[in-house]
C-alpha cells in the first residue's frame, strides 16, 4: 500500500477508505434512482471523494469526483441531464475500480 501523506500510515488510510466507501457504489446507485431527492447524497459523496481519493493516490477517482462535485454544485443542475448521468457513470466505475485496487494493495482482496 502506498500513501501520499507524510506521517499517515498507508494501511490505516486504506482500512478507513474501505470501511467508509466499501458500500458506496450501492449507495450511489440508490441515490441516483431517487432523482432530485438523491442529489444531496450524491453531492456529499462526490465532495468527500474529491478530498479523499488523492490521499490514497487514486488519480482516476480523484478526477471523476472533482468533475462530478463541480457539476453537481452548479445551481441549475439537472439530475436527468446527459452530462450528470455521464459524470455519475464515471464516478461509479472509478469508485468500483478504486475499491478493487485498494483491497489488492492492502491484501484484503
Amino acid at each position, binding site marked *: 500500500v502506498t500513501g501520499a*501523506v*507524510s506521517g*499517515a500510515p498507508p494501511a490505516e488510510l486504506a482500512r*478507513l*477508505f474501505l470501511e467508509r466507501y466499501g458500500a458506496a457504489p450501492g449507495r450511489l446507485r440508490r441515490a441516483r434512482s431517487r432523482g432530485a431527492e438523491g442529489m444531496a447524497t450524491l453531492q456529499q459523496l462526490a465532495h*468527500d471523494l*474529491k*478530498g479523499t481519493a*488523492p*490521499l490514497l493516490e487514486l488519480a482516476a477517482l480523484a478526477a471523476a469526483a472533482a468533475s462530478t462535485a463541480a457539476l453537481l454544485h452548479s445551481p441549475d443542475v439537472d439530475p436527468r441531464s446527459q452530462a450528470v448521468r455521464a459524470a455519475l457513470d464515471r464516478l461509479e466505475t472509478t469508485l468500483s475500480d478504486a475499491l478493487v485496487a485498494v483491497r489488492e494493495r492492502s491484501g484484503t482482496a
Partner: protein
Amino acid sequence: VVPPAMNGSAEPCPCEAPAPARARVFVVEDEPVQRAALVACLRDAGHTVTAFADGRHLLRRVAEEDPELVLVDLRLPDADGLELVRAIRGQGDCGVIVVTARDGVTDRVIGLECGADDYVVKPFEPRELVTRARNLLHRVRRQRGRNQGLRFAGWFLDRRTRLLRDPGGRPVPLSGSEFRLLTLLLEHPGEPLSRQQLLMHLHDQRSTASDRTVDVLVSKLRQKLGDVQQAGRSRLIATIRGVGYAFQPPGE
C-alpha cells in the same frame, strides 16, 4: 524546535523562522480518511492534534482548552461550517483554517469574511497545509503575545499586570522571579529548558545564583499551581532528567 528567546526580543519573520514549538491544534472533519490524513501530517510537523467528527464536541473543547489553531471542514453532519467558524472566532483568538472541497470564489470570500484566517481547498497538499498552519501559528502567537495573556489548564497569567489567576479567577501572587520563570516555560510548551537557560532568563546573565535557585523557584511555582505528582497525570511543570524543566500542557 525553536530555541527559547532569551532576551525577549521580537520574534523572527515567519518566512525565516523554523516551525513554532509544538502547538495545540484541533481538527474537525467528518470524513475519516481525510481526518486521519490531517491529523497525521500535523502530528508529523510536531503539533499536538485533537480530532473531532462533529462541530458540537469541537466547540465545547475549544471553550475548555483554548487551542492555538483549529482546522474546520465546512460540510459537517451537525453544523454549518461557516456558523462554526463564527462561533470559534467568538470564543477566542485562535487561528482558523477552513479546509473544504468548496472551491468557488464566492465560497472562499464568504469563508474568510466569517472570520477564517486561511482557506485551503481539497484535495489538500499536506506540505502546503503544514506551511500555512506554521505561518498562521506564528501570527497567532505574536498576537497572543501582544494581548499579554497566557492561558493554561484554566489558569491565566496576565503579563501586563503580572498577575496569575487560578481557574476560579482568584489572584495568586507571584514574585518577580516566579513570574519570569513561569512566563518563559509557558512560552515554550513541551520544550525542555535547561537550568542554565532559565537562570539566564531570570537574571539577565549578571547573577551569581546557582542552578539550585531554579529548583527552588520551580518548587514554589508548583505549590502555587497545585501542581502535584499524581498517578496517570503528568505535572504541568515537568522535570526533565539531566536537562531541566518543561511546561507540559494538560492532555499530553
